């Protein structure tokens, strides 16, 4: 997994069936990347439900949240609608897990992303990364701690 002080590898992924997101376009803002194994599995859903409530707090820190899994854009669309999610789910679908591999959080055995979090600062540098056991929802305390420290800096 990429560690603190590494330049965050750039990527472009589908966020909706007709819109793409490029990481480098968010320079000047903080970015949270939440890699997760799959849409619909129970723990992820809890995690995404929590982040859905957290958006107003992330906003206070000028931070944009992107969740990333290997599911396709259509799967993301259905999942997002079903859970009423208000943040983009990016499809690391073609080549499968390509971005997860760049961040070294791809699980070859499962063919899924590991459950991993990255906080990237306004200059595009990784300031915090965390890998959680797949079955454990990592919460949001580590993200908030990092954003708070970035604010003080």
């Amino acid at each position, binding site marked *: 997994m990429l560690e603190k002080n590494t330049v965050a590898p750039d990527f472009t992924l589908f966020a909706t069936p007709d819109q793409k997101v490029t990481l480098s376009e968010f320079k000047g803002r903080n970015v949270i990347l939440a890699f997760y194994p799959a849409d619909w599995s129970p723990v992820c859903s*809890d*995690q995404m*439900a*929590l982040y*859905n*409530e*957290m958006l107003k*707090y992330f906003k206070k820190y000028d931070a944009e949240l992107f969740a990333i899994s290997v599911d396709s854009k259509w799967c993301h669309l259905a999942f997002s609608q079903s*859970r*009423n*999610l*208000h943040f983009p789910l990016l499809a690391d679908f073609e080549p499968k897990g390509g971005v997860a591999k760049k961040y070294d959080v791809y699980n070859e055995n499962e063919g899924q992303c590991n459950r991993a979090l990255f906080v990237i600062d306004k200059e595009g540098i990784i300031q915090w990364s965390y890998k959680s056991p797949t079955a*454990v*929802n*990592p*919460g*949001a*305390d580590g993200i*908030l*701690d990092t954003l708070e420290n970035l604010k003080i800096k």
Partner: protein
Amino acid sequence: MSLKIPVSTTDHAQGNLNADLVIVEYGDYQCSYCGAAYPVLKKLLKKFSGEVKFVFRNFPLSEMHEYALPAAIAAEAASLQDKFWEMHDAIYENQQYLDDLYLFKMAEEIGLDMEKFKSDIQKEELANKIDADFQGGVISGVNGTPSFYVNGKKFDAGAEDLFKLFIK
């Protein structure tokens, strides 16, 4: 993971308020897992009421649960009439019927002054208290509901497992 906001007199507490053992629950009134934990906690408190202080804090996932926040506000409003636990219990015991109207009905059933209740639920301070509970929960590592803390440490297991704390 530890509780970042210490238990204080502003918390809703029951049981033995001076007990050495303090259990804090972060809960959502519409969450079915919290609903399932409710009778277990009730049983635990009945059996060990002298040995434990039990605190409830709000953690409404309001984007997913439409009535979680209104229910939390109703319970906080009931608290202003010293009937927090009556409302808390009434909501969990009737969770499947939860909606705005039902909250008013329950408020009436537990004997609240309805004029006061209707005015109190509009108060910003109640929403702020719930928000403060939520934020405190997040920084303490609450990752879903219910989340329990035992003497300030996160308890990564279900309500049933809390009984093990009492085996001597």
